[in-house]
């Protein structure tokens, strides 16, 4: 399919204008202030200066728009751009991992989209077309889709299988996101630094009795935390609102966002693994997030593609069957996976040997111990730091308790905990390398650690499995590899 050379939507000029204005806002402001100081305040200068700068920026926006040309030729997307330095990028369509569509508020007013083309390797999108009409975007997508088996009809698609997040689920997803914790911590540390700067030396006993007298303050703090939590929840709701997932032939597509709509479209053969993440707040409620390990996204983007924000164990089977049958495990394991996801009892996953228990506890105990030692010695109230290493040790036991693995045909199921508990399903074909290793202490008790790398630049592994299991896993990968041809699924 051909796609002739064309420019972006005219709104592109406005978008470049606004972006440059945003980038230059601080320097411009500084310049303005310094001018006002030097020459005194003059309405005439302000207006002519403002108009002049705006005109310059508009001209810049126009030039960048004028010079930005894209087309598809010989199966490659070609983008030519640059006002001062010309740049020409050629992206073969076989290299394209995902084509994402985004809509900001301005975009929605004019019914246009921003198109991001992602390739493997590199951490940022290979090409971003900031303003493309809906019609052009669809044409571009079709021209770049390797298998032209389906026609995509913009955002709210009706074909294929389709699932939408309810508001209740969305709210719960936001409320348990833990984003509030981050906000609270950052604000507290900010306030702390401020107090330090002011040079306020706090007499702690006095301080606490003072607080005790004014219990209202405590309520105030609780209120502030509550408001922060509400804000974080709202943030997540706006970001992931109206979440839908759909499957069209060889592509899986997620669309979300209340104000800014984001559409992520991933070829199924690029999906390296599926993981179920049970956040600390979500696990007790029996919910987890299903994420995709996608080869197109670099390590930089902290957000893994979310297949489904908030799932219950019961839904897992349905979701995998409907949207990713390639990752559907055999029914037997599936049902056990369901039960193990909410029960903490591991019925189907194999567990670590008991000798590993002490090692897990110590492994988490010592680092915390080393960190809290100076706290204990030098800081006032540092005596309380005594409990920290023991909390660390408990955390290690928790990790030990949750760790597990299972082999089923060509799938490896692996579970471990850092803070959240993560269960990952890895097909043998997406394992890029597999390593088994041991240190002298492990060798003495016959344990090894293993880790595997995926093309999504993630790695998964477990410490302290028995040597025999390590050998089994290697053997499994060998035989699987002999059976599968390059290019998995």
């Amino acid at each position: 399919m051909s796609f002739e050379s064309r420019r972006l939507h005219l709104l592109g000029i406005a978008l470049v204008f606004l972006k440059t204005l945003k980038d230059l806002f601080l320097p411009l402001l500084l310049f303005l202030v310094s001018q006002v100081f030097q020459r005194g305040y003059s309405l005439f200068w302000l207006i002519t200066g403002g108009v002049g700068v705006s005109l310059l920026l508009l001209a810049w926006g126009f030039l960048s728009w004028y010079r930005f040309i894209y087309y598809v030729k010989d199966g490659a997307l070609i983008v030519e751009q640059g006002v001062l330095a010309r740049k020409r990028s050629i992206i073969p369509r076989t290299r394209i991992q995902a084509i994402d569509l985004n809509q900001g508020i301005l975009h929605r007013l004019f019914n246009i989209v921003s198109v991001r083309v992602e390739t493997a390797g590199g951490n940022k999108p290979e090409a971003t077309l900031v303003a493309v009409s809906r019609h052009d975007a669809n044409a571009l997508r079709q021209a770049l889709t390797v298998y032209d088996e389906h026609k995509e009809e913009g955002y709210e698609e009706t074909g294929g299988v389709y699932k939408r997040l309810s508001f209740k689920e969305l709210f719960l997803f936001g409320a348990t996101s833990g984003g509030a914790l981050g906000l609270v911590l950052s604000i507290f540390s900010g306030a702390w630094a401020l107090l330090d700067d002011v040079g306020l030396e706090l007499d702690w006993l006095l301080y606490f009795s003072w607080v005790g007298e004014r219990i209202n303050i405590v309520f105030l703090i609780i209120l502030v935390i509550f408001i922060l939590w509400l804000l974080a929840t709202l943030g997540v709701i706006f970001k992931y609102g109206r979440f839908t997932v759909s499957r069209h032939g060889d592509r899986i597509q997620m669309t979300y966002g209340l104000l800014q709509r984001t559409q992520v479209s991933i070829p199924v053969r690029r999906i390296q693994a599926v993981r179920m993440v049970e956040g600390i707040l979500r696990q007790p409620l029996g919910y987890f997030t299903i994420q995709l390990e996608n080869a197109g996204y670099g390590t930089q983007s902290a957000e893994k593609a979310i297949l489904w924000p908030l799932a219950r164990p019961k839904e897992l089977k349905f979701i995998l069957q409907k949207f990713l049958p390639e990752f559907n495990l055999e029914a037997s394991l599936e049902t056990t996976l369901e039960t193990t996801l909410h029960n903490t009892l591991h019925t189907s996953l194999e567990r670590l040997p008991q000798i590993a228990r002490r090692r897990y506890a110590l492994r988490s105990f010592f680092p915390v111990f080393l960190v809290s030692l100076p706290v204990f010695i030098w800081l006032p109230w540092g005596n309380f730091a005594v409990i920290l290493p023991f909390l660390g040790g408990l955390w290690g036991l928790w990790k030990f308790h949750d760790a597990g693995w299972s082999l089923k045909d060509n799938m490896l199921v692996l579970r471990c905990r850092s803070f959240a508990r993560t269960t990952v399903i890895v097909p043998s074909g997406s394992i890029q390398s597999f390593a088994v290793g041991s240190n002298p202490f492990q060798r003495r008790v016959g344990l090894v650690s293993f880790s595997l790398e995926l093309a999504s630049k993630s790695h998964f592994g477990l410490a302290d499995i028995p040597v025999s299991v390590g050998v089994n896993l290697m053997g499994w990968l060998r035989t699987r590899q002999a059976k599968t041809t390059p290019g998995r699924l």
Partner: protein
Amino acid sequence: MQSQPSERIDWRAVKVWQIQGVFKALTMAIPLVPAVFLVREFSWPLWVPVLLAVVVILYGIVEVALLPRLRWERWRYQVQQEEIDLQRGIWFIKRTLIPMGRVQHVDTRQGILMRRYGLATVIISTAAGAHQIPALREDIAGGLRDSIVRLAQVSDDVL
């Protein structure tokens, strides 16, 4: 663990690593200069540079006399039809398996030191990252590179 991979790397790797060890120790010795200066001009206690020197010398001994030999002793590799098998490590002994179908491209690389000894490193890249077989004889490295490429049939579609 299973039997080790069959091939060893070139023994001259030990020499290269020893020379590199000397350089590492020399780099570590750089802080000695300001330390001596501080002792002379600002009458800092003498034990500061002495301690530094002892640390540097110990480090040098370990890096020259001990580690290269052990490292070479442990390093094994084997390229088979379906996989590449690597073993290395002194404290943490690690065995890595790279499925042949996952290999994206293979390079050989030579630093100045390596070239002086006629050695080269083979670098095997997958979509997840690179793995190295250090210090093979040039012709062996070249042959290995070519045979891995042939076995992997590096193609564009494979990720």
